[in-house]
C-alpha cells in the first residue's frame, strides 16, 4: 500500500510534487541566506514534515474525520498547557518543550479545527441544514482556541482560525435570518467589542495597527516593519540582489526576516522574476487544493479539502499583502516558507490530506 501511494503521486501528480519540492527548496535557500543554521534546522523540519505527511497518507481520511473531536480536544488541552506552563520566548508564551525541541500547539490547532469543523458540520457524511445551534457550536469551537492563542500573544494564528471558520460558514451557507441577526448583533456590539479588544491588545499589536494607518509616522518605531519590508522588496528590482546581496537582511534591518517576512527576503534576493516563479508555484498549490475539493465525490472530502484551501489561500494572500504593505502586520506566516517546525509540519500535513482525499476517493 505504501508503494501504491508513492506510485500514485509520482505518476498522477508529478507537477504537484515538483511545485511542493520547488517551494521547499526556495525556502531552504532563502533561510540559508538569512542564517545557515536556521536553514539546517528548517531542513530537518521539512524532512520531519514529509515523514508526517507520509504517515497521514497511510491512513484513509475518513478515519481522521471520525476521530476529529478527539484530535481537537487534545490540541485544545495542549493550548491550555501552553497557557499554564508554556515556554516564553521574545515576550510571547507559545511553545511547549518536548525533549530537545519545542512544539507550538497553536499551529496544530489549524489542522485540528479543519478536521473538527468538517466532522461537526456533517452528519454521517451528509450535509445537514445549518441551524443556529450548529452555527453557535462551530463559532465556539473556533473562538475558544482563537482567544487562547491571541492571548499568547499570537494574533496571526488566531486570525487564521477565525478565517477557517468563516470559510466553513461561507461554504455551508447560512440562512439569511441567522446572518442578519448575527450581523446586527455584531454591529451593535462592535464598539464594545472594539473597546475591549483595544484595551486587551498588547502595545506592539496596537502599534502595528497604528503603523498600518500611517507607516511613515514613526519610521524607527511602529511602522518600522512595514517600511523595512517594502524597502527590502523594492531594492530587489527585476532580477534581485542575489543570495548574498540582500543588505536589508544581511545587516538585520528587517526583523522577523526568517518568519513573517521571509517572502520579502526572497524577493529582495531573487527580484521580480523570482517572485513570479514563487507566486506561480504557490498559486498552483492553492488551485490544486481547490480542485481537490471540487472533484471530491463525498461531502467529507469536499469540506476537508476546502478547509485546507482556505488555510493556504488566506495564509498566502494575507502574508504577501502584509509584506507589500497593503495589509497591517498581523503576523500570519507564509505557508511552507516561514521558519518554524510546527508550521511546516502542519502545512505539509494538510497538503498530504489533499493527496489522501484524492487517493482514497479513487478506490
Amino acid at each position: 500500500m505504501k508503494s501504491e501511494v508513492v506510485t500514485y503521486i509520482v505518476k498522477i501528480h508529478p507537477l504537484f510534487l515538483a511545485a511542493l519540492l520547488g517551494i521547499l527548496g526556495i525556502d531552504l535557500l532563502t533561510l540559508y541566506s538569512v542564517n545557515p543554521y536556521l536553514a539546517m534546522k528548517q531542513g530537518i523540519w521539512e524532512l520531519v514534515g514529509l515523514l508526517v505527511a507520509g504517515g497521514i497518507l497511510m491512513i484513509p481520511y475518513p478515519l481522521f474525520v471520525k476521530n476529529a473531536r478527539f484530535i481537537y480536544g487534545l490540541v485544545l488541552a495542549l493550548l491550555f498547557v501552553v497557557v499554564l506552563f508554556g515556554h516564553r520566548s521574545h515576550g510571547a508564551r507559545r511553545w511547549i518543550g518536548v525533549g530537545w525541541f519545542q512544539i507550538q500547539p497553536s499551529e496544530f490547532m489549524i489542522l485540528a479545527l479543519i478536521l473538527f469543523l468538517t466532522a461537526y458540520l456533517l452528519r454521517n457524511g451528509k450535509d445537514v441544514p445549518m441551524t443556529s445551534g450548529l452555527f453557535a457550536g462551530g463559532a465556539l469551537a473556533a473562538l475558544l482556541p482563537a482567544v487562547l492563542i491571541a492571548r499568547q500573544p499570537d494574533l496571526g494564528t488566531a486570525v487564521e482560525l477565525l478565517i477557517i471558520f468563516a470559510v466553513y460558514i461561507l461554504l455551508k451557507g447560512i440562512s439569511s435570518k441567522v446572518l442578519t441577526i448575527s450581523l446586527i448583533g455584531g454591529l451593535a456590539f462592535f464598539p464594545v467589542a472594539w473597546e475591549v479588544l483595544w484595551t486587551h491588545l498588547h502595545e506592539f499589536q496596537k502599534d502595528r495597527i497604528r503603523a498600518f494607518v500611517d507607516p511613515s509616522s514613526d519610521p524607527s518605531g511602529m511602522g518600522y516593519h512595514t517600511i523595512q519590508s517594502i524597502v527590502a522588496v523594492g531594492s530587489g528590482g527585476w532580477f534581485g540582489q542575489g543570495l548574498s546581496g540582500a543588505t536589508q537582511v544581511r545587516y538585520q534591518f528587517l526583523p522577523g526576516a526568517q518568519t513573517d517576512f521571509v517572502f520579502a527576503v526572497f524577493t529582495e534576493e531573487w527580484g521580480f522574476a523570482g517572485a513570479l516563479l514563487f507566486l506561480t508555484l504557490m498559486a498552483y498549490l492553492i488551485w490544486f487544493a481547490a480542485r481537490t475539493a471540487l472533484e471530491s465525490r463525498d461531502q467529507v472530502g469536499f469540506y476537508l479539502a476546502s478547509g485546507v484551501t482556505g488555510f493556504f489561500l488566506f495564509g498566502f494572500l494575507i502574508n504577501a499583502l502584509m509584506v507589500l504593505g497593503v495589509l497591517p502586520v498581523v503576523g500570519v506566516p507564509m505557508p511552507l516558507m516561514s521558519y518554524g517546525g510546527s508550521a511546516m509540519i502542519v502545512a505539509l500535513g494538510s497538503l498530504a490530506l489533499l493527496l489522501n482525499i484524492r487517493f482514497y476517493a479513487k478506490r
Partner: protein
Amino acid sequence: MALDSRSLKRSLLGTPRARLRGLVLLFWVGFSVVVIRLYVVEVIKHRHYLALARENIVKSTPIPPLRGEITDRNGVVLVHNGPEFALFEIPGEVRRPQEIRWVASDLGVPVDRLLRSTRSLGFVLPSHVPIPLLAGLSMAQVGRVNMDLYRLPGFFIQIMPKRIYPENNLAAHLLGYVGSFTPGDLKSSLYRHLPPGTGVGKSGIEKEYDSLLQGTPGMRRQLVNSHGVMIKRLREKPPGEGQSLRLTIDVRLQAVAERMLGDRRGAVVALDPRNGELLALASHPAYSPGELSQAMSTARWNDLVHAPDHPLTNRATQGLYPPGSVFKIVTTMSGFQENKLDPDKSFQCGGLFHVGSVIFHDWKKGGHGTLHLHRAIEQSCDIFFYTLGMKLGPDAIARVARDFGLGEKTGIDLPAELSGVVPDRQWKKKYLHAPWFPGETPPMAIGQGYLTVTPLEMARLMGAVAMDGEISHPHLRLGKTLTSLSPVGLPVKNFALVKSDLRDVVAAPHGTGHPVNLSFFAIAGKTGTAQVVSNRGVNKDKKRPKADSWFVGFGPFDSPRIVVAVLIENGGDGGDVAGPVAREVFRMYYVTHASTLPPPSPSVAPARPGGSSL
C-alpha cells in the same frame, strides 16, 4: 425558457461547490493585487527603495563641534571650552526599561533627573539618535557607570565640550549661557543638524550669535547592522569649529562696574558715543552662566525664575524705570525746539506748583529761589520744569523724547531687549482709553508718571547729547555692526548750551552730580532721583519706597569718548548713590586710556561764568 433569477443565483452561488468557485475567483483577484503591487514596488519604484536600502546600512553619527570663544575688545578671553564627561542613551537600544534605574543608582542621582531628558527629547527624536542624560559627570561617577556599561548597550559615556565662563559671574547677562536644546528648538532649522547634547545659546550673546558660534558638526560614517554594530569604518567628516567672537566690551570697565554695583540691584551701561560700541553692560543681581549651562534641577530653575530680585533679567536692556530728572534734558531740548524756553530769563522757584487744585512740590523744601535754566539743570529744580512742561504739553515733549530714541528698542545685538514708554495724548487714549489730564504733564516733564526707559536707552540719549545730536546704534560685536551715527534732527547750537549746563551738574560744588567729579577727567552729566510707586525686590513690602537713583554722564567734556549710565533700584539720591559708581567707571576709563586721551582743557570751569555766581 430563460433562467429565472432564482435558479441563476442557485447555479452561481447556491451550492457549496459554487461558493468554493467564488472563493477561488476571489483568490485570483487577490493574487492579481499581489502581482501588481509587487511590480509597482519592485520594478517601478526600484531606484527609490534601493537608495533607501543604502541609507539604511550607513550609519551617520554627528560629532559635536567646538563652540567659538568669546573675547573682549582687547582679546581677553571671556568664554572658552573645556572637556566634560556626559552620559548618553540610545533609546532604541535599551533592552529593559529598568536599565535606566541601574544607571541612575550607579550615578547616585534620582532617576527622575535622567528620565526628564528621555521624556523631552526621546519622544521627538528617532530612537537611534543618542540623547544626553547627564553631563558633567565626576570621575567617580564615570568609574562606577563604566563598570556596568558592558551589559548596557543602550548607554555610553562620551567626552563633550563644556562652556567655561568667567569667575564671579562676570558679564553674565551679557554673555548668556548655553543649554541642551529642547524639543521646541528642534523646530528651528538652525538646530536641526546638531547632535543632541550640543549646547545651543539660550540667552545673551550666546543666543544672539548662536549660528556664528555653533560651528558645523562633523559626521562619523560607519557601515552597521541594525544593532548598530560597526562592520566597517567609512571616511569621516571632521567638525568645523565655531567662529570666535570679539566683543566691544572692555573687561576692565565691566569688572569695575560690577564691583561698584556690589550687591545692590541695578545696571551700568558704558557706551562709546562715537560709534555705539558698548564698553560695559552690567546688571545685578546676576546668575551663574556655568550653572545654567548644566542640567539643573527644576526646583533650582524655579527659584531663579521666581526670585524676588529677578536675577535672570538683564536690567540694562530689559529693566524699565522712570528716568527721573535725567529726562529734564529732553524737556529742555523740547523747550528750545518749540521756542518756549529763554535760557537767560530768570525764574522764581517757590517750591510749590499748582495745576488746578493739584499741588506739586519741589524736591527741595522751600524751593531754589530765583534762577536761570543753567541753575535749574545744575540743581535739578523741579518747579522750573513743571512750568516749562505745562507750556509745552505732553506731545511736544514726547516728540523730542522719540527723536532721542526713547520708546523704541535701540536694536542692540542681544535677545529680548525691551523698550520704555513715551506717553502722549494719543498713547494714553489708545492704551488707557482716557484723555490726557493737565495734571499729568508736570510729572512727565521731570521724567515721572507713565514715562519709562531702560538704562541702555538713557546711555544712548546721553551719547546723542555728547555728540551734538548724532545718535549711535549700540552694539556688542566688534567691527561687524553699524558704527555710523544718525542725526536726531535737532539744531546743534542747542546742544552746546545744555552740555555746559550738564558739565556744571558735576563740576560745580553744589551741582547734584558733584560726587562724580574727577579733577583729571572732565565729566558732564545729569542725576536723577526717580520716585517709584513701590519698592522692588526684597524690600517690596516696606511702606515708603526709596527712589531709583540715576546718573547718566559723559566724558571727556571736550571730546566725548565714553557715556556711562548708572541705575540703582531704590537707591535713593541719584548723585550720592549712582554717582560714585559712574565715577569709578570713568576713572578706570581714564586710567586705561590716559595715554591716548587729549590733555584736559585748562578751563574745566563752567562755560557760562554767570552760572556759579548765582
